[in-house]
């Protein structure tokens, strides 16, 4: 397998470090995938930086992972794509429970539903999202099922258990 060239990734990491100082937490390479970590306070700014000042201008995905034993509890990730040079990066941040993340809706309008989904399933509030309602589950649903402490068999009050 060809080795991944880390030069462009390091250059982008320098740009991020110049811009965000110690709020940029570093770069990680794993299985030929580049992940940049930033502090949650610059989450939307870093995403805006990727879109408007680099080639990584297309959002592909927004994802969260729950680590209940860890503090901060959640990982929040976006995948940004550069259609120009056919590469992509992952931008990640950590969020404590109930800590709101800044919305990316102003950067990519399409992030709106992805954030609603994460609010629905993980209970991550997104500050500034124009319409933060439940998306997949009914409006009166209790709990956030993709959290690790939510039983796979359904809510405790469910009649179908």
């Amino acid at each position, binding site marked *: 397998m060809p080795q991944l060239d880390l030069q462009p990734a390091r250059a982008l990491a320098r740009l991020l470090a110049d811009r965000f100082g110690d709020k940029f937490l570093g770069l990680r390479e794993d*299985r030929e995938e580049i992940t940049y970590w930033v502090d949650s306070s610059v989450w939307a700014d870093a995403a805006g930086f990727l879109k408007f000042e680099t080639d990584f201008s297309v959002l592909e995905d927004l994802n969260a992972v729950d680590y209940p034993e860890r503090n901060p509890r959640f990982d929040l990730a976006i995948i940004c794509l550069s259609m120009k040079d056919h590469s992509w990066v992952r931008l990640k941040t950590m969020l404590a429970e109930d800590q709101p993340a800044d919305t990316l809706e102003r950067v990519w309008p*399409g992030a709106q539903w992805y954030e609603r989904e994460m609010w629905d399933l993980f209970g991550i509030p997104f500050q500034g999202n124009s319409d933060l309602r439940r998306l997949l589950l009914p409006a009166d649903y209790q709990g956030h099922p993709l959290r690790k402490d939510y039983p796979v068999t359904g809510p405790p009050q469910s009649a179908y258990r």
Partner: protein
Amino acid sequence: MSQTMITGDIVSRFTQEQLDQNGYTVMNMGPQHPSTHGVLRLVLTLDGERVVDCVPDIGFLHTGIEKTAEVKTYNQALTLTDRMDYLAPLSNNLGYSLAVEKLLGVNIPERVSHIRVMLAELQRISSHMVWLGTSGLDAGAMSMFLYCFQDRERVLDLFENISGVRMMTSFIMPGGLMADLTEGFLDKVKEFLDYFEPHIEMYHGLLTGNSIWLNRTKKVGVLSAEQAKDYLCTGPVARASGVDWDIRRDFPYAAYADYDFKVPVLTEGDSFARYMVRMAELDESVKIVRQCLTKISPSGVYRTDDRKVVAPPKWEIARSMESLIHHFKLFTEGYAPTPGEVFQRVESPRGELAFHITSDGSNRPYRMHVRTPSFPHVQVMPVILQGHLLADVVVVLASVDFVLGDVDR
């Protein structure tokens, strides 16, 4: 129709006062409407017959696949992926398998990659046949539906031939394929292509020059390239709006780098452009499958020989203790990739399908997130439908071609 009769929180974005003042009507389309192609509910605010606002309501098919995958071993979770985009299960299998293989760092034999390409393209043909048939039906061209489903049936027969199942095949699995190709399968594929290729011409004859079809689709549901990018649209929807992007060409996976095909791109962004892009894709898929036929040997290796990932053949288990242990370990525990995460995208018939799998070093995915192509395509509906006639809603929905199982997961 008043707002209050709609239960839950989903209503028009307008207040009752505004509705009354402007004489707007709130109308519920779906979830049981045949043209929503599944169970999608659209809350339409209408000014006469014009759509002023549209609020999509999804989640009727939410089955918690991402949550369920967390308690299944990697091999078991494969069967869940079939059920997301139920019109293109093999594309889902392919995306999932590639993601798990990337997580494990397994190399796949070349023949397997070529077979995967062939199956993915046959799946594209069958999926596009459902799209073409149903969108024709929605616009009143009933015969399209009958012809297209006949052709789709032939593809499903091919899948049945190799896997024993018509739809939820799970045939592509991490580490290779479930089984080798059956005897004479490649001849059957060739037979199908010879049968199918003239049909594309026939469909063009039935619809492309049809003045009713042109009136219904041209300049209807226009999406600009900027909007397509901002709303994460991919696949034929984005390509019809002038976004020249195809994962098969731009991030080649499986064996796509070895194939010669064009990526059809149009710039109009209307329903007709989406139709033409998909029709051109049918031609390209046939071309790719024909190339596959020259590259695939009728029988041969169909799995990786990494015993930690796929079970050894039966004859080996009877003779070797080590193989027996491998077999036992695989079917009781499965395999455990090292901690980390992967993001693997494939071009499904509907657009970009990506699996984002996080491993914590155990034998089950710690988190499996699926970036499905249909999800953003439903989100963009209010943008496309703004100002359209109610009758056009049906055509636009059909031209975007989403699958609700894919949206809700």
